């Protein structure tokens, strides 16, 4: 269907580099203590069950699904906060765009408060901000959405931990084994380097991959800042058949 994903479409996924991801048990982030498996993961090549996955071409996204400034507005006014557009390209490890895939995102409001019954932070709720949105990537793997910059907030871990401003992302890809959840941070934020959840990632270069860059040229004058956040999913090996065909 999509010519873009065809090269390597039948090949196995590259093995996940578990050293690049956070390990399961990270004592600095206390919630992992009883939630981290103790046994080693069972390593298996993905089978057809993991090499296939859901796609959402049939889902009709609403016109405001990628507009967090307006998609929960109760009275037609905008959410409070610093306006910005977040965009980026979903790629695989072979640098091939991943088109037609669902990207979901959620975040706290400008004061750092989530719309959730278990949220205990003092910061005020914004009646016009829900904090949830979604996009389907275009033919070149690009997504974009409009939102307000989330605030930093304190959380119960050690006595005085604060989360840097961040946006949660969920990405599907085209294989169930590509499924990924991560968080996006903002360029220049000193809080990134003090966060126990960020610090679960051992390699600084890997953390750097989660930091969105201010895209000065794509800011909307008198309206919104712009941040770029590219996302890389697991890629596929070429098959022998393709080697003959494509010469790679």
């Amino acid at each position: 269907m999509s010519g873009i994903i065809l090269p390597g479409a039948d090949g196995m996924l590259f093995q996940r580099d578990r050293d690049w991801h956070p390990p399961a048990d990270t004592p600095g982030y206390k919630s992992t203590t009883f939630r981290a498996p103790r046994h080693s993961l069972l390593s298996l090549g993905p089978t057809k069950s993991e090499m296939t996955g859901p796609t959402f071409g049939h889902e009709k996204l609403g016109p405001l699904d990628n507009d967090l400034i307006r998609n929960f507005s109760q009275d037609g006014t905008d959410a409070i906060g610093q306006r910005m557009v977040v965009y980026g390209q979903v790629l695989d490890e072979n640098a091939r765009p991943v088109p037609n895939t669902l990207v979901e995102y959620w975040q706290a409001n400008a004061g750092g408060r989530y719309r959730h019954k278990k949220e205990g932070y003092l910061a005020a709720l914004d009646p016009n901000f829900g904090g949830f949105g979604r996009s389907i990537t275009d033919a070149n793997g690009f997504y974009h959405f409009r939102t307000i910059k989330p605030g930093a907030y304190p959380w119960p871990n050690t006595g005085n931990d604060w989360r840097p401003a961040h946006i949660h992302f969920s990405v599907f890809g085209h294989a169930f084994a590509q499924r990924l959840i991560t968080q996006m941070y903002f360029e220049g934020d000193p809080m990134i380097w003090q966060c126990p959840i960020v610090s679960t990632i051992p390699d600084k270069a890997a953390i750097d991959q989660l930091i969105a860059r201010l895209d000065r040229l794509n800011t909307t004058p008198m309206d919104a800042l712009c941040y770029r956040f590219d996302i890389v999913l697991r890629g596929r090996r070429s098959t022998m058949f393709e080697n003959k065909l494509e010469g790679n």
Partner: protein
Amino acid sequence: MLHPVPTLKETPSQTAGPYVHIGMTPNFCGITGAIDADLGKTMIHGDVEGERINVAVRVFDGAGVPLFDGVVEIWQADAKGNFVGPTTPGSNAAPAFTGWGRQPLSEAGAATFETIKPGRVPGPDGKLMAPHIALWIVARGINIGLQTRLYFADEAEANATDFVLNKIMDKRRRDTLIAQREGSTYTLDVHLQGEKETVFFDM
């Protein structure tokens, strides 16, 4: 001939956090009006071949506490062992059977999927694998989504020759993937840690 080396690193995972329900099941946590229905809530949209079943997944942490703040996703074949293929953006209707479900874990750490019993899918060795459902679990305190599978207790013969189950060297741990049947409901208890720790995969 050499395979090309990947040029980019996969984006590192981060925990889904305590408010994952906002992003993945917004209606469930009271953010209504933004989307009609939570994605993945309904897997069957019409006349679908196969045995209708409920799949209940209960998740517990290492202290035996139900995982009240997580999300479970499942992906499975239809009754004939086929997976729903890719769809074109915006054009066609939802497939009658999506093969994909997503449910929030309740306060009791449980999620129930209304689905059909999957058919058998060929494994990498060309032989049919036992009927199974792929599971993916995310929550606060889980740094990277946990992959595992659910098999069916009443498929003992197929389970005995299954490619994946047979890769589990400690045979006692194979049982951690097998859901027990009561009526039309199959229940699997997933333990993140402890004596009954579930086998999780790196696939």
